[in-house]
Structure formats: structure tokens, C-alpha cells
């Protein structure tokens, strides 16, 4: 009868299996790194807006119109960039096994909080009453078909009304700032919308019911 060395074969197979694990780790890290780079670009944008406000505070005689235009342009660009991260982050994270997404995810949401604050601040600074910040709370850790639908409806509104600034935040993170915002507006569940920092709408809302709370400015072109 043929003699086989099971032990040697087993060791060989385990080595191959470990190589496979290394490959999986490599692929996961590669995906994470590509996302990390984009998120870091994104947060640089919010840092530059931060500096713009600091600049306005520090220097006495600033041309307000010019400053407002720059801030406007910067926040708008950041918004356009970050809008697709939500879905991207989710699909990447679902397919991930060995890489750690916690940091990247938190960085993204913190940048979003900053973006929301700058939008609100620029509204008073530049007397720009048409700009409407819209906070959208959704779930990251569990499946939420309501959130997907809400996202698509908001997508439409965003395209239609350039003055509406949709900013997404996760309702189930541990970040203290997001928890504070949630308790301030009494947000319990996702999806929830906070329109213009005062109106809170819980559950999925269709286009017409959201439109009641916002002044859609179709005409004005902000991306000059």
C-alpha cells in the first residue's frame, strides 16, 4: 500500500493557508488605504475652511463678499466629494475582514460635523438665508432599507435645490459630538432629518413633505 505523510502534507497546507490569510489581509488593507486617502483629502478640505474662519477672525479688514464666496465654494466642493462616501464606506466595510475601518469612519463623520458647523456659521457671517443645512441621520451597523430610500430621495432634492446642503451622520457611532447633537435635537432613531437646524422629521419622508420645510432655490448658481 502507498505510504503517505499526513503530517508533512498538513504542515504544507497550513503554510499555504497562512499565505492566503496574508493575501486577504493585503487586499483588505489595499482597499482601506484607497478609501483612507480620499477621506484624508476630504478632511483637509474642512481644515482649510477652518483656516478661512480663523483668517476672518484674525484679520480686521477682510473683504466679506470675497471671503463668503471662497467659503461657499470650499464647503460646496467638500459636500460634493463626500456625498458618495456613505455608500462606498458601507460596501467596503461589508466586504472587509481583517482591516480596521473604525478610524476612517470616525474621521469621515467628524469632518461632516465640521462641515455642518461651517455651513451654519457661514450662514450668519454672510447673511446667506437661502442656504439650508440638512442633517441626515442613518444607521451604519445594521441593515436599514428606510435609510437607503431616504438617501435616494435626498439625492434628488440635492440635485434639484443647490441651496440645500445634505450632511450625513451615523446615528450609531460612539463619537461624543454626534451623541451631543442627537440629544440636542432629540434624535432617537434613523432615518431622521434635521432641517435648517430647527425642524426634526423622524422616519422616511417623501419629497413633498421635505419641500414644505425648505425654500428651494433653483435659480442661483453657487459654484462660481
Amino acid at each position, binding site marked *: 500500500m502507498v505510504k503517505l505523510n499526513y503530517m508533512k502534507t498538513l504542515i504544507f497546507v497550513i503554510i499555504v*493557508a497562512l499565505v492566503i490569510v496574508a493575501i486577504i489581509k493585503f487586499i483588505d488593507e489595499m482597499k482601506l488605504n484607497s478609501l483612507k486617502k480620499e477621506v484624508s483629502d476630504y478632511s483637509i478640505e474642512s481644515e482649510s475652511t477652518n483656516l478661512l474662519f480663523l483668517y476672518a477672525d484674525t484679520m480686521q479688514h477682510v473683504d466679506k463678499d470675497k471671503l463668503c464666496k471662497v467659503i461657499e465654494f470650499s464647503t460646496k466642493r467638500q459636500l460634493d466629494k463626500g456625498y458618495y462616501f456613505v455608500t462606498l464606506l458601507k460596501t467596503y466595510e461589508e466586504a472587509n475582514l481583517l482591516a480596521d475601518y473604525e478610524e476612517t469612519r470616525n474621521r469621515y463623520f467628524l469632518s461632516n460635523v465640521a462641515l455642518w458647523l461651517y455651513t451654519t456659521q457661514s450662514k450668519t457671517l454672510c447673511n446667506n438665508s437661502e442656504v439650508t443645512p440638512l442633517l441626515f441621520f442613518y444607521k451604519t451597523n445594521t441593515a436599514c432599507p*428606510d435609510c437607503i430610500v431616504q438617501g435616494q430621495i435626498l439625492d434628488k432634492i440635492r440635485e434639484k435645490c443647490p441651496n440645500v446642503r445634505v450632511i450625513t451622520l451615523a446615528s450609531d457611532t460612539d463619537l461624543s459630538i454626534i451623541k451631543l447633537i442627537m440629544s440636542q435635537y432629540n434624535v432617537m432613531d434613523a432615518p431622521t432629518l434635521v432641517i435648517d437646524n430647527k425642524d426634526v422629521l423622524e422616519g422616511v419622508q417623501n419629497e413633498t413633505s421635505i419641500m414644505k420645510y425648505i425654500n428651494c432655490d433653483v435659480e442661483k448658481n453657487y459654484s462660481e
Partner: protein
Amino acid sequence: MITVKIKKIKKEKKSKSDVFMRKKRAPVGKKMDKLTGIAIIFVLVLLTIFVFSSKEVMSTIYFMFGTCSMFSAAIYVQLHLFHPERKAPKLKSNEYPSITVLVPNHNYAHTLRRSLNAIVNLKYPKPFDIIVIDDCSTDDSVKIIKEYAARYPQIKFIRNEKNKGKAASLNSALNMTRSKIVACIDSDTYPPEDTLLKMVPYFYKRRNIGAVTAFITAADPKNFVQKVQELEYYSAFGFVPKMMTKIDGLTVTPGPLTLFDREKLVEVGGFDEHNLTEDMEIGLKLHWNHYAIEYCPEVTVPTEVPNTLKKLYRQRIRWYRGTIFNLRKYKDMLFNKKYHHIGMFSLPTCFIYVVFVILTFLILFWNFSRDLLLKLETLAIGLSIASLSYINYIDSLLSPISFNSAFFIFFILFLSFWVYYLISSIKIAKVKLNLSHIPAVVFIILVYPLFVSICYIISFAKEMLGGEMIW
């Protein structure tokens, strides 16, 4: 002193009964106790929920089984590359032993003629008897057999007044013959002319050979279900048994056609009459008594395969229940060094392979159904909330499921092993696949394992709950 004596006597008795066990008997297969069965199912369901609850646990378990499947593949490749197979000796025409062909039949009138024609035309240096056992058929079988018996004097005909089952029919025919070898051929199998000539020399390859099996294939597949099975038979009955026979690890003697050494078959007690898959049982029983099974890759024997999904489902439930029952019955052989490779490799592999296939496709099914459910829910909510343009939703419905890379890599790995086995088997069978096989190939890779998994799960539940054994 007295106690020592008693101990000695006890020891002697034990060793005697051990020899007796090893040489003549087989373990008794018992039906599962219902309460134990329910407990096992309960534990397994809890375990499954635990596994599926977290991506990490799912991947770890998956990784473990992936490693096991790689291990068996590594063994096969080793055997394939480094252990050339020994040829069977060439026999002179007067050296061929006496042979009897046993043909059990139960309501196979539609295939009986073709099968009997093939059997009558089998070439052999010596004249041989054909015993056809009709197991109380209700169709035209008896008429056909009588017609053939009248034409060919070597055909003998037995008729069971009651339906006894295939095993009992074969056992009753075994008592009627004294030839050295018996060939059991199903009445829906069409052996080629040289079957016996090529297979019989394998009995002389080495000592203690109890049975010789052949490469079973699907006979002229017409519809899709049969074409899928054709590929399945190629991948299962070609390369793997050829490698397994090198380490004496064949567990099944396929029902459609197997040659047995009559004396050894009688010695181990013939076929088990209370078994769903007596062909697997006899294989394990021969091994239990330390007889070997040889595989002859030179002969491809076409047999009829189920032509509808329902028939296939019933056949598979029977097969898989039999497999589970017999694995339980011969559980003492598992990881038992006394049984060499069959205990240490062949049976554990068979078990692990089953678990691996079930797990892979449950994960696939789980991901797919969860994804689909989410998408449908989204669509429903979208439609009820707002009459949006549908394009967004159709887009997202068509988007592929997201897999994690571990799953993907192991799936590809497993698939490549399977393809390797299939291609090697096709080479052994000396056939060529053509373009018309492509849909069946896609189906057998992506959908068919799910069907097999479901069949296995149902069979397992039935076997655990001790359902009636119906052929």
C-alpha cells in the same frame, strides 16, 4: 488468585469475540433515538445561528474547512503526481474465473431490453449464467424477462412474490450460484462489451480484494437535469476514486455495476437488507472485514439517471440518508488506525467535504437572500413613499452582492480543485465536453451545490428524527 483467573478468562473471551467481530460481522445500525435526534438538531441550529451572527466567526469556520479541503486536494495531487498506479495483471483466457451476472429489477421495463441486450453481449472467455431477479414488478418486466429467458438459455429467472428490496433480491440470487465472481448489474445500466474482460483481472492485482468497481457515467443525457448529473458523475466517479484506490480508500461500490468476490461477499454476510444505500454499506462492510475494493478506470459504464428534479430529489434524499446512516453505523472506523487510510483519510474527508459544501452554499445563499430581501424592502418602501423614477432601484437591484475577500478566495480555490478533478476525470473517460455543456457547467457550479446542500440538510433532519426508510 480467583480474581486473576476470572480476569484471564474474560480477556480470552474478549479476544475471541474480537476476532469473530472482525472476520464475520458488521456493526448493527440503529435508528436514531428521536429525543437524541431532536437534541442534536437543536444544538446544530443554535450553532448555525451563532456562526451566522458574526462575520468573523463565519470566516473562521470557513477558513478551517477551506484548509481541510486543501488538505484532501494536496493528498490527491500527491497521489496523482508521485504514486504511479500499478497495472492489473494480464490473464490468459483459461485463467479467467467463473462468473455469474446478477440483475435485480423492479419496474424497469423501459430500460430492461437495452440493459439485457448489453449484458447478453458481454464478452468473456467462459460461458456465464445471468440471473434476473424480478422484485415483484407491476409493469411489463416479467414478460420481457420471460421473452429473453426463452431466447437465451443462460438467463435464469427468479420472481419475488413480494417486494423485498434490491438487497434481499441480490442475496437470494447469491445462494443460487457457486461461481468465483458475481457481477451485480442494475437493469438500467448498459455495460460495454469488454466490461468483464477488463475488470476481472483487477481481482488478481493483490490479495484480499473483495470488489472491483468501474467508472459510472450518465447514459445519454437528454434534458438539462441529466446533463448536470452527467458532469457530476464525471467529477465524482473518475479522478477521485482512481486516487482513492491507490491508498485503498474507496468506500462505495456503485450500485449500477460492481463485481464481487462471491466467497468474501457471503462471508461478510451479503447485502444489508435494511439499508437505504446497500452499495455504500457493503463497501464499508468489506473494509470492516479488511477486504479491499479496487477501481477499474478503463471501463466507463453508462447508467440511467433521474430525468426530473423531483425524481432526482428523491434519489438524493435516499443516497444522503444512507450515507449519514452508514457513517453512523461504521463510526468506529473513523480515525481508527486499524483501518489505515480509510479510517484516517477517506471517511473523514467524505464527512468534511459534505460539511464544506453545505457551509459554502449556505453562506452564499444567506448573503444572496439577505441582499435580495434588503433590495426588495427598499423597493417596496420607495414605491410606497414616493413615486420616484424606477431607474435608481433597478440599478441597485442589479448590483452584485458584496462578498468578503476570504470567502471569495476560498470559493475560487475550491472551484479550481473541482475543475481539476473534472478535467482529470474527463481525460480518464476519454470523452470531450463541448459548448453545449456550458450552461450545465455554470449551473453545477453556482446553483446545483445549493440543491445538494438542501438535500443533505433535509436528509440529516429526516435521519435524526428517525423517519421511515422508504426506497
